[in-house]
């Protein structure tokens, strides 16, 4: 981050620049996507609450039904902790949608414990406290912001010690839990607008590719997730067609099964 002394200069520069008359940004109406794809960065994984926000606008979601209080098992394998951490942060966003302050506070504590277990707790303690404080004040916008900051800090800490693959598993855990809840909501009350939110083929590609590059994590769970993503692909990669209710239900079955496997110790 920039030194504090630079802030006034920065503010002056911003005010000066933003007080200039805005120009309508003129841009080519069309670009060649094939040519573009050579210089494209990886797809950015959305936060679970981006899809929850869109889903919420369709109305009629009783978020309390989807709040999960199960603490989950204690794992020692770091990839499993990373997946669970992502899923628990997604649970935090669900608890915020439900405006369930006690669960949000429990989740803040669980995130801290999981961060300790994976060795990245130093930057998380302050966030966990901020989550608790904001939940006490029922300031849901702040809780959302802190959950985002928490995930970002966890992933930055992992990236700094070259644990990028664990960082990707945090994103994957969150995405799977988000997809599980999205499909549960849409299965319960099917609409084409709701099922369209599943149209995420590039994210599926991204996670498949990432899982293929993790042979060193010799875990059956990761192999199961990869196989499940292959199974999900034809269900969501439907071009301009609608994703039917039966496909949404099937994706829900798959992601629920994976969700159970992420949170529970298999015998």
């Amino acid at each position, binding site marked *: 981050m920039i030194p504090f002394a630079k802030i006034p200069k*920065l503010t002056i520069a911003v005010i000066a620049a933003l007080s200039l008359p805005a120009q309508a940004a003129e841009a080519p109406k069309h670009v060649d996507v094939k040519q573009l794809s050579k210089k494209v960065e*990886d797809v950015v994984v959305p936060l679970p609450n981006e899809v929850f926000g869109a889903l919420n606008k*369709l109305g009629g979601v009783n978020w309390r039904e989807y709040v999960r209080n199960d603490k989950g098992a204690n794992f020692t394998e770091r990839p499993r902790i990373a997946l669970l951490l992502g899923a628990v942060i997604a649970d935090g966003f669900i608890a915020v949608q439900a405006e369930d302050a006690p669960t949000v506070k429990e989740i803040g504590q669980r995130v801290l414990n999981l961060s300790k277990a994976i060795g990245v707790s130093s930057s998380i303690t302050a966030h966990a406290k901020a989550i608790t404080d904001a939940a006490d004040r029922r300031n849901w916008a702040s809780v959302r912001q802190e959950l985002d900051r928490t995930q970002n800090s966890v992933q930055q800490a992992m990236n700094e010690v070259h644990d990028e693959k664990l960082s990707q598993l945090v994103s994957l855990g969150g995405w799977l839990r988000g997809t599980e809840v999205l499909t549960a909501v849409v299965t319960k009350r099917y609409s084409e607008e709701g099922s369209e939110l599943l149209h995420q083929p590039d994210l599926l590609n991204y996670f498949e590719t990432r899982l293929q590059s993790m042979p060193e994590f010799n875990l059956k769970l990761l192999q199961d997730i990869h196989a499940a993503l292959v199974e999900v692909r034809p269900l969501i990669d439907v071009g301009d067609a609608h994703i039917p209710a039966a496909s949404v239900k099937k994706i829900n079955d798959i992601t629920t099964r994976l969700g159970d496997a992420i949170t529970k110790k298999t015998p």
Partner: protein
Amino acid sequence: MTHFLKTAWRAGVLVALAFVAVSAGRASVDDAQSFALQAAEPYVKEGFQVREDYWGGDLGSGEKKAVRQQLFKGNEYWFWLGTEVEAAKVSVHIYDSEGKLAEMPDSWQKGHFAAAHITPKNTGSYFIIVEIEQSPEERTHWALVYGFR
């Protein structure tokens, strides 16, 4: 022993210089991010949640970079681009997966800031294209942040 000390001294100086160079490079991308966040600030008051994550790097004049982003129909998004090079001119535009310009007409460009606005017509992948249109620097740091509501 003297030879050993000289070698150790040179190695130490090289490590220190490398550290300073890396820190300086990183600081500039962080500076660019601060400018992008400043551009986003007024929108936070309008209920946009700005993601902590951001993209950044450096580009030469006339160079572009594309970022692929999953957007959801029903949400509203703003993307803000900034650089610390005050004499630079930057732009950001949003295209759908077919390569068609998809942003709204209130997207804007003001010197070393630019922003693009979209309420996606469809859920799916979009391309966010950033460009350093002009800059006095050989390489110009940039950072892109986004928010949604």
